[in-house]
């Protein structure tokens, strides 16, 4: 089961105001709880110029999405912001394919049990119910930092590698580099923690409640 909801307008609209947009919408798991109508309504109400839109199945499949990105490269080049409507995995895939582009998510992922493991192995989504990828250059600090830090590097990384897992890159150094590349370092000034754990369905609610 997958449950995704569209982010509050007040979070998305200021980020995309006046920008040229390229939009990805994932239809892969839409038969479950993907708010396709809400997404369409949201897109139709936008005053921003939409230079292109890609509707595709399984945005979590990086190889497949890579082909789409190539196919739409001219339109993507014209856009200032890439806006993605999918679960957190899809957003991370798009961000990783478009390293020097501003990628924002329009969704909060609530629940994707049953889909994890079927999709990309490279990216994970913790179903926070409040997605932070818009503040971290599309790189997830919850699943990539062992402390799930939201306010920047702990200072323990050695040669860019995590002190907890020396095989892994420090997520916050990657985030810093990505934000530097897209000219958005000012985002780091925002204090993101603490998380609202009551929004995390996997921790707090039953399946019946999600369905409601």
């Amino acid at each position: 089961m997958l449950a995704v909801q569209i982010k509050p307008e007040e979070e998305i609209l200021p980020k995309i105001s006046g920008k040229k947009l390229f939009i990805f919408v994932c239809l892969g798991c839409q038969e479950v709880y993907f708010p396709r109508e809400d997404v369409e309504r949201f897109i139709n109400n936008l005053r921003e110029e939409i230079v292109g839109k890609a509707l595709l199945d399984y945005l979590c499949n990086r190889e497949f999405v890579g082909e789409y990105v190539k196919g739409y490269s001219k339109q993507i080049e014209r856009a200032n912001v890439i806006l993605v409507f999918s679960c957190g995995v899809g957003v991370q895939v798009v961000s990783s394919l478009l390293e020097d582009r501003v990628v924002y998510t329009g969704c909060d992922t609530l629940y994707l049990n049953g889909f994890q493991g079927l999709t990309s192995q490279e990216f994970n989504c913790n179903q926070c119910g409040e997605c932070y990828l818009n503040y971290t250059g599309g790189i997830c600090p919850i699943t990539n930092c062992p402390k799930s830090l939201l306010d920047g590097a702990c200072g323990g990384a050695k040669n860019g590698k995590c002190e907890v897992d020396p095989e892994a890159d420090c997520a916050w150094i990657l985030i810093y580099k990505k934000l530097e590349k897209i000219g958005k370092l000012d985002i780091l000034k925002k204090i993101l923690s603490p998380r609202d754990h009551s929004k995390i369905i996997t921790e707090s609610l039953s399946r019946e409640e999600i369905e409601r």
Partner: protein
Amino acid sequence: MNFSEKLKSGKFLITSEVGPPKGINIDKSLDEAELLKEKVDGFNVTDLQSSVMRLGSLAVCHLLAKRGLEPIFQIICRDRNRLALQSDLLSAYVLGIRNVLILTGDHPVLGDHPEAKPVFDLDSVSLLKVTSGLIEGKDMKGNDLDGKPDFCLGAVVNPGADPLEPQLVKMEKKIEVGARFFQTQAVYDLKKFEEFMKKAEQFGVPILGGIVILKSSGMARYMNEKVAGVSVPEKYIKMMAEAKKGERAKVGIQIGAELIRDMKDLCQGVHIMPLGWERYVPELLKASGLD
């Protein structure tokens, strides 16, 4: 003058550290701290340092305060959620603790209980913000407190981190939410430290450079390899390697004193982390002319 007043006075500050034992025999640590009473401006008490289970920071801070010493309560986010953290801060105040150093804390896998659940409900930045709220008389949900604590809040920074910029961004965030002083990771490379200080000066917050007495050349090499932001220059490693077994402490103190003397012109104080060598701190202070 208490620690908070000393910070404002612009005096060159000296803080040291008390590492609580694994167990309940605390008298030796307290006696060692008492020897430094007039020489040191504050004593950090570490909070389950390196993720190793020990006697708690809160209790030891209270015992120091009872002996008329000035404790700096280290509180980390690894082991407690937001309810427990706020509650322990209130407890600290009623137990006579007036200074708090707020850190995120090491991950449990690095310690002696690697199976423990990592909490990290808050982090250093958000806990500073929450504590500033307590000082204003509100808990983090905005509920009124019956009596408000007044703390002097500090934080840490790693001046040798590579890249350094993310540390500076985080440092600025910490200041914005209430950090009034900083203590740093151990410094051996003064050139790098000077570069850091040039960038951090703009914030106008006192910075106490970290000092760890070298115990052996092996320790220096280990830190160079494993500890982020620490780079012991080859000349110090050579000095330690050439020291005879009985003279290593003397050489370690000599190096520490040299670093402290040079740091005096660079930053606003030093923070000495003796790591079990508390007994050598008086000698170190004497050798560096801070006695």
